[in-house]
């Protein structure tokens, strides 16, 4: 509607405009707070482990009550089969789930963004190869690909001596986030490539070229910042799928085993549920539910405010 387009305050950049709109979106802000809380919690668990702090609510391995105690005043969400606090396990599970999803996201961005930018910028043979690579990967059904990677990478040692890094042992969750990261960069790569192709003939790029910027500088200093909002949006929405994928991988025995994760808790609880021990399942489900909800709401709002194409009134 022409009437509405006018009310946009003038003279703001895409970012400040987007952030302004976002700030006005109460639900999105609530989502952001929840996401931040989860991340801070995960970070806090890492710090406390690094500093060897003994914080009672992180001592998930302690026996604090009888086995399978239902939720009560003392243990708000009950205990598990060893009498350990389900609440503590749920809190601690944040670490694994956030770590897996975060590292997988970072990995997919680290692969997808440079490849996409290079393909879109240089075109030609480089583009052909990168497009072939991601078309190939995207032709393989995602679930099969991720399972295949997780399965094959599991308990493998990767020799990185040539890079001066020694041997990387893929224990536990390492294979999980590697599998997710190595398989999910396709989406972001495709988006970035498309966007870079659109941008590379814009005036500001031509201007940069005209005063002698190198290709590398143009890509890193000019193009990527201008398409980075796509990365952020993709990140927030993909994060959810990674958290959910952790559950499936745990069910298939490919997840973390040595410390609680939400996927492992749900997997455990599938035996508990039939006899009415519903609390462990519920706690993990809710933990996943809230961060997924927050990420979905926030991601949607982010997309609406940062991506003019997709803006929905």
């Amino acid at each position, binding site marked *: *509607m*022409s*009437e*509405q387009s*006018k*009310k946009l305050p003038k003279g703001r950049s895409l970012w400040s405009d987007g952030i302004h709109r976002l700030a*006005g979106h109460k639900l999105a802000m609530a989502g952001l707070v929840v996401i931040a809380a989860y991340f801070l919690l995960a970070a806090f668990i890492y710090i406390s482990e690094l500093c060897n702090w003994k914080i009672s609510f992180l001592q998930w391995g302690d026996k604090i009550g009888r086995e399978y105690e239902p939720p009560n005043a003392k243990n708000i969400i009950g205990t598990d089969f060893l009498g350990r606090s389900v609440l503590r396990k749920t809190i601690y599970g944040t670490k694994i789930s956030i770590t897996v999803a975060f590292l997988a996201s970072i990995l997919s961005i680290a692969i997808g963004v440079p490849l996409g930018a290079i393909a879109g910028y240089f075109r030609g043979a480089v583009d052909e190869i990168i497009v072939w690579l991601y078309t190939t990967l995207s032709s393989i059904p995602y679930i099969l690909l991720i399972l295949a990677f997780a399965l094959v990478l599991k308990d493998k040692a990767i020799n990185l001596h040539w890079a001066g890094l020694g041997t990387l042992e893929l224990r536990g969750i390492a294979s999980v986030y590697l599998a997710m990261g190595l398989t999910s960069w396709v989406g972001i790569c495709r988006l970035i490539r498309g966007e870079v192709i659109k941008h590379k003939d814009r005036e500001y790029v031509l201007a940069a070229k005209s005063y002698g910027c190198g290709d590398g500088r143009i890509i890193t200093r000019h193009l990527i910042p201008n398409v980075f909002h796509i990365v952020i949006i993709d990140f927030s929405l993909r994060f959810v799928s990674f958290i959910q994928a952790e559950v499936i991988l745990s069910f298939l025995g490919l997840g973390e085993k040595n410390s609680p994760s939400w996927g492992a808790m749900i997997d455990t609880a599938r035996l508990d549920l039939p006899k009415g021990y519903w609390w462990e399942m519920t706690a993990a489900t809710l933990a996943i539910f809230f961060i997924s909800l927050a990420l979905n709401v926030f991601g949607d709002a982010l997309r609406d405010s940062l991506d003019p194409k997709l803006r929905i*009134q």
Partner: protein
Amino acid sequence: MNNNGTLLSLENVSTHFFTADGIVKAVQNISLKIKKGRTFALVGESGCGKSVTALSVMRLVPHPQGKIAGGKIIFEEKNLLELNEKQMRNVRGNKIAMIFQEPMTSLNPVYTVGNQIAEAIKLHQDKAGWQAKEDAVEMLQKVGIADSQRRINDYPHQMSGGMRQRVMIAMAISCQPKLLIADEPTTALDVTTQAQILDLLDELQQQEKMSILLITHDLGIVAERADDVAVMYASRIAETADSKTLFANPLHPYTQGLLKSLPRLGFTGERLPTVAGIVPDPLHFPSGCKFHPRCPIGCNDERCQTIEPEIRYVAPGHGVACWHAQGYEKITDKQNG
């Protein structure tokens, strides 16, 4: 009240938009009358509310944000705002038709033009598919599309902008409406095509004896084609009169400003506003007369800054909303002309 000769009258119609940032009063207390067989032009800068006025008549204000907040829209002695949705659908496209600014996008790209024209005919005239199709061919002929028998199977993307606008017009007149609302029908077209389309509208008006509500920002077109005019500014009518009177004796400073910017001869497709200042943000209208910040008189006048003038009729059929308009203060009552 004498309704003889009046086809459509708007009485104190207000339309508001409820947005996340606040209420936008896009149309405030508008009243106007359209006479049978005549062309009524609604003029104003973009964003002044003229399109919303037209959509309000069609009851097609974008919902759910937009709402007609009050007033009456009397068409053929019935208040359109009191009709139920089904009755209203029977008016749309049948008795009141509308054509839009963007012929490029206003047609559905995935159906043939024939299909789209015939759709309205089938709906309102209860005709069988083949009959409707024959009618559609005839309509295309009427709007001057050569080889209409064949073109009827074309898709919109196979046609030029002018052709598409002709198709839109064909679709609009296919059910012989009493009123055709043309919302900036030529803005998106090049100059020669503009004239052709306007000529076509004139011609059809003669043939079909329909009234036209022409929405435009181009005073040149108004001068040439309209019988009656209303000038809108910031959701309200600033001045209304028959075309001759308005051009001869503009009373509102805004109208005066607009006319000054009009080239003496003919019309051009150039955008109008050369009145100093910018159109106010509908969320933050100025107090008093909304034109006062841009008005050579009002910007220094306290009354203009604090009290908003109502429209008053200084002569039969000539209404204006300005404290400083000639003869405005003498009239104390609102008159309904």
